[in-house]
C-alpha cells in the first residue's frame, strides 16, 4: 500500500447541496457542461426530492479523465447551500477535503470539522449588494457558487461565458445578471482562496466526439427516428421527461403546432390503463405507437399487456424504473421491474425486454423496439431506470443510417388479400411462429375479430382446449424464437479470470470501473452484460464456463439472477447478488466491496494470489 497522494487533476467528485425550487439546477448544469466542454469526461447525478419547492436536493458531479463516470460516493468537495442539511453535508466530505459554504453569517456549528478545509464565501451578501429583487437574489446566488467553483477548480471562464451566451442569447438582462453573479463568485474565490485546489481541471480532448444526454431524451429521439406517430401516456416520475422531449422533438420535426397539421398525435391519457389501451388501439391500426411509464404504471397496464400478447398487437413500452414497491421513493432509482415486465399480465405470458446500459443505447434500442414489436407482433419493453433516464451521461455521438427503413413485419395488403380469398389470422404459414396480420380499413377479406378471449388459429372464438393450446404453444415458440433477433450480450473476457460477473442496464459503468479495481486487487473477472430478454444462448455458455458467478443489479431480491435461473435452469443459489437498492445510482465501490466480501467469507477457492495490477 502506498501513501503517495495521487494526482487529482481531472479525477475527483463534488456535491452541491441546495434547496429544491431555488433554481440551482441551471447553475449545476452550467458547471457540468463547462467541464464537458473542457474535454473532460463528467457525470451529474441529480438526487432530488418528490417535491416542487422547499425540500433538500443534491447534485453530484464526478470528473474522471479515464471516463469512469458512474456515481462516486467519495466527495472531495461539498458546496453546502442548504442550512437544513449542513450536518449531513459536512459529514460527507472525505477527510482532508473541502467544504464551501455561505459565510454571510457566522460559521454554523454543524459545519465545523477539523479534518477538512472550510471555504467561506459570502454568497448571499454578494447577491444582496448587487441584485435588487428577492427572486433574483435567490437565483443569482446559485450562479455565484458556480463562479466560486470555477475559480477553485480552475475552470475556463471563457467556456462558461460561452455557455451563458448560448443560453441567454435572446434575454440580454438575464445574461448580464448571470455574468455579474459568475464574476462575483469567481473573483471572491481567486482573492480569498488558494486557487486552484489540488482537485482541479485541466483541458483534455476526451469528449470531442461525445454528447451529454439523458436516456429519456435519447429514447424520445429514437421514437421520432423510428417513425412513431402515436404516443399515449400518463404523467409519472421518472418517465415524464421522455414525453416532454418527444413533444419538443415533435414541434421541431413533426410539425406539431403547425397549421399544415402535425405528423404525430400525443395523447395524455386519463390513467396508465388507458395509455396502454391507446397504444394497442393505434398498433392495431398499423401506426407505430408507444407509452412511457414507471413501475406503478406497468402494474396498471398488466391487463392490456396480456391482451396485446395474446391478440398479437405491436406495442412499445418504456419503463423508466424507480424505487418500489407501491409509490416507493419516486425520485430514486432501482431495477425492480425486471420480473414484472418479463412476465407481465395473468396467464402464461412472456415479453421481449430491451435493456439499454446508457442513453446512447436508449436511442438505438428505442428504434429496435418498434421493429421487434412489429416483426413479432407483440409488446416490447425498453427498461431503463431513473439514473439512465434522467441524468445526463457522456456518450458517443448518436449515428443514424439514412438507409434504415422500418420493419413492419408480416402485414398483408389489399392485393395480397384479393388473391388470398380467405384469411386466417393466427395460422403459422412460415413455420416461424409468426402469422401474418391485416390492418383494418384495407380490404373486406382481411376482416377478423381481434379478441382477448380464447381463439383458434383461424382467429375464431374457441373454448376448445386443443385449439387454445395450439395458439399458446405457437406464441411460446414465437417469443422464444425472438431471442436470435435481439441485441446480443456485451461480453468482456480477460485471461485467467476466476469469476464471472453478470449485470444489466445502468450498472454498466460502475461494473466496468469495478473490474479495473478488482484487477488491482488481483481478482480477474469476466463480464457479461445482458442487453435483452429472452436471453441469448451466450448467457448460458457464460454461466457454464465460470465456477463463481456474481449478478450485479439494483434491487433487493436479485431479480435478474432469478430470471436467469428460471430461464436457463442454472441454480439460483449459485448466482450471488451484488448491488444496493436504496435508490442511489450504483458505484464501483459497492461492486468491489460486494464481490470482495463474498469472496472473503466464502470457502470457494476462487481468488487468485494478490498481485500488482497489470501484471
Amino acid at each position: 500500500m502506498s501513501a503517495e497522494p495521487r494526482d487529482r487533476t481531472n479525477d475527483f467528485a463534488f456535491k452541491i447541496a441546495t434547496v429544491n425550487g431555488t433554481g440551482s439546477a441551471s447553475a449545476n448544469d452550467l458547471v457540468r457542461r463547462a467541464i464537458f466542454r473542457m474535454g473532460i469526461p463528467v457525470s451529474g447525478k441529480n438526487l432530488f426530492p418528490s417535491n416542487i419547492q422547499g425540500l433538500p436536493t443534491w447534485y453530484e458531479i464526478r470528473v474522471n479523465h479515464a471516463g469512469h463516470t458512474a456515481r462516486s460516493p467519495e466527495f472531495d468537495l461539498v458546496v453546502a447551500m442548504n442550512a437544513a442539511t449542513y450536518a449531513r453535508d459536512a459529514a460527507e466530505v472525505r477527510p482532508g477535503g473541502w467544504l464551501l459554504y455561505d459565510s454571510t453569517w457566522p460559521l454554523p456549528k454543524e459545519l465545523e470539522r477539523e479534518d477538512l478545509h472550510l471555504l467561506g464565501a459570502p454568497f448571499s451578501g454578494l447577491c444582496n449588494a448587487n441584485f435588487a429583487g428577492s427572486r433574483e437574489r435567490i437565483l443569482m446566488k446559485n450562479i455565484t457558487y458556480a463562479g466560486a467553483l470555477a475559480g477553485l477548480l480552475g475552470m475556463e471562464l471563457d467556456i462558461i461565458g460561452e455557455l451563458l451566451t448560448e443560453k441567454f442569447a435572446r434575454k440580454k438582462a438575464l445574461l448580464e445578471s448571470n455574468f455579474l453573479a459568475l464574476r462575483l463568485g469567481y473573483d471572491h474565490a481567486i482573492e480569498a482562496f488558494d486557487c486552484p485546489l489540488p482537485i482541479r481541471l485541466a483541458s483534455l480532448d476526451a469528449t470531442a466526439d461525445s454528447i451529454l444526454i439523458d436516456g429519456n431524451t435519447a429514447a424520445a429521439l429514437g421514437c421520432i427516428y423510428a417513425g412513431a406517430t402515436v404516443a399515449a401516456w400518463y404523467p409519472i416520475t421518472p418517465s415524464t421527461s421522455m414525453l416532454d422531449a418527444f413533444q419538443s422533438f415533435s414541434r421541431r420535426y413533426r410539425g406539431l403546432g403547425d397549421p399544415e397539421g402535425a405528423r404525430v398525435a400525443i395523447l395524455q391519457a386519463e390513467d396508465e390503463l388507458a395509455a396502454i389501451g391507446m397504444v394497442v388501439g393505434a398498433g392495431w391500426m398499423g401506426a407505430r405507437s408507444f407509452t412511457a411509464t414507471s413501475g406503478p404504471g406497468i402494474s396498471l397496464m398488466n391487463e392490456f399487456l396480456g391482451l396485446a400478447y395474446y391478440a398479437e398487437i405491436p406495442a412499445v413500452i418504456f419503463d423508466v424504473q424507480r424505487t418500489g414497491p407501491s409509490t416507493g421513493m419516486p425520485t430514486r432509482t432501482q431495477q425492480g421491474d425486471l420480473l414484472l415486465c418479463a412476465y407481465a399480465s395473468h396467464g402464461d405470458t412472456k415479453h421481449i425486454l430491451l435493456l439499454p446500459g446508457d442513453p446512447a443505447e436508449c436511442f438505438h434500442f428505442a428504434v429496435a423496439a418498434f421493429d421487434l414489436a412489429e416483426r413479432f407482433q407483440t409488446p416490447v419493453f425498453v427498461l431503463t431506470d431513473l439514473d439512465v433516464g434522467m441524468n445526463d451521461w457522456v456518450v458517443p455521438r448518436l449515428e443514424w443510417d439514412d438507409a434504415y427503413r422500418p420493419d413492419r413485419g408480416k402485414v398483408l395488403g389489399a392485393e395480397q388479400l384479393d388473391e388470398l380469398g380467405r384469411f386466417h389470422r393466427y395460422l403459422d404459414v412460415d413455420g416461424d411462429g409468426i402469422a401474418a396480420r391485416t390492418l383494418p380499413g384495407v380490404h373486406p377479406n382481411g376482416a377478423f375479430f381481434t379478441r382477448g378471449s380464447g381463439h383458434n388459429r383461424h382467429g375464431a372464438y374457441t373454448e376448445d382446449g386443443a385449439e387454445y393450446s395450439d395458439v399458446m404453444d405457437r406464441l411460446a415458440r414465437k417469443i422464444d424464437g425472438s431471442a436470435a433477433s435481439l441485441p446480443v450480450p456485451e461480453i468482456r473476457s480477460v485471461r485467467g479470470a476466476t469469476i464471472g460477473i453478470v449485470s444489466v442496464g445502468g450498472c454498466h459503468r460502475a461494473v466496468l470501473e469495478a473490474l479495473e479495481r478488482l484487477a488491482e486487487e488481483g481478482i480477474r473477472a469476466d463480464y457479461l452484460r445482458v442487453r435483452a430478454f429472452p436471453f441469448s444462448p451466450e448467457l448460458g455458455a457464460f454461466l457454464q464456463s465460470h465456477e463463481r458467478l456474481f449478478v450485479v443489479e439494483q434491487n433487493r431480491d436479485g431479480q435478474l439472477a432469478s430470471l436467469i435461473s428460471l430461464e436457463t435452469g442454472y441454480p439460483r443459489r449459485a448466482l450471488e447478488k451484488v448491488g444496493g437498492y436504496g435508490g442511489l445510482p450504483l458505484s464501483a465501490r459497492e461492486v468491489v466491496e460486494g464481490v470482495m466480501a463474498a469472496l472473503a467469507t466464502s470457502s470457494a477457492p476462487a481468488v487468485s494470489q494478490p498481485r500488482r495490477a497489470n501484471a
Partner: protein
Amino acid sequence: MTYIAKPPVRHPALPRNALGLTMRDYEGAMSTLCAGCGHDSITAAIIQAIFELSIPPHMVAKLSGIGCSSKTPTYFLSQAHGFNAVHGRMPPIATGANAARRDVVYLGVSGDGDSLSIGLGHLCHAIRRNVDMLFVIENNGVYGLTKGQFSASADVGTRSKRGEENRQTPIDPVLLALTLGATFVARGFSGDKAQLVPILKAGLRHRGFALVDVVSPCVAFNDHVGSTKSYQFTRQHARPILIADYVPSADEITTAYAAGSVRPVTLHDGSTVRFRKVPESYDPTDRSGVESYLRERASYDEVATGLLYVEEAPEMHEALGTTVTPLAHLPYEQLCPGADALFELQNGFR
C-alpha cells in the same frame, strides 16, 4: 361454440344501397344471445343504419368491451375488423385507433356494466376528447353474463330476479354525457327500431363523440315485475318525445311537417337532423335547457327518448391539430428527420 356463420344465401330481389350492396353484406354471425334479447334488435338497427348510409363495411371498425352487449359486434358487419377489448376499456382502444386512422368509421358497442362501472372513467374521457365515434350503450340495468347482479344504471327500488331491491342511485349516461360536454346525446329503446335507426345514422355522421343510450331489456335477468328496465316498464314509461329524422346531405330536403314544429340541425357534412313534434321551447343545442327538460320529464317518471342534444365542436384530431392524412398512412420519409438533422441537433447536447 358461439361463432356460427350464416349461410351466404342472397335473395336476388333484396334492395341495394348506393354501393350496390344488400343488407346481407352488413350482417354478421348468428347471435348467441338469449331469444328475445333487446341487444339483437339493436344489432338489426345498426345493420340497417350502416347499410342505408352506404358505408363500405370494411371501412368500419367495430369495437366493444366485455359483457353481453360487447358480444354483439360479432353479429353484424362480418367484413369489418372488430376489436373485443378488455372489460370497460374499449374507449382507449378506439381513441388510439382513431388517432392512427381518422378515415375509418368507429362504432363502439358497450353495456351499462362495461361503461358505467369498470369503464366509467374511460367513457368520460372519450367524451371529453370528443373522439369521433358512435358509442352505443346497450343498457339493461343488470350484469347478464355473470347472472343478474345490479349494474350502476339500476334504478332505486328496482328488484332483481331474486327479489333484492336496489338502494343505490343510478348513473344516467345521458345526464352524465350532457354534464361532461358531450356533443351528441341520444336515448333509444331497443323495442323502437323506427326511432333508433335515424338516431344511429345521425350518430355515425356526427363529427365527434355520439353517445346513444339504448334501453335494452334483459329477458333472462331483468324482465320481471319490479324491474324498471323490462319491456313492459319501458313501453309504459318511455316517451319518444323528441322525434328526429336523419336526412343525408345528398337527399333533397322536403318539408313534410308543419312549419313551427320542425327544428333542423345541420351536421358538419351537410346532412341534417330534423327534430319534429318537439315542444316549442325545446332547443337541442341548449345544453342546460336540455338537462332541465330531461330532469323535469324524469320527475313524471318518464324516460325521454330521441336525439336529445347535438352540437358541432372540434373533435379529437381538430383539437390535436393532426394532419388530414391518417397518421398510419404517412410515409416514413415524412417522419424521420435523417442523419444530418441528428448531427445538427447534437451540437446542442454539448
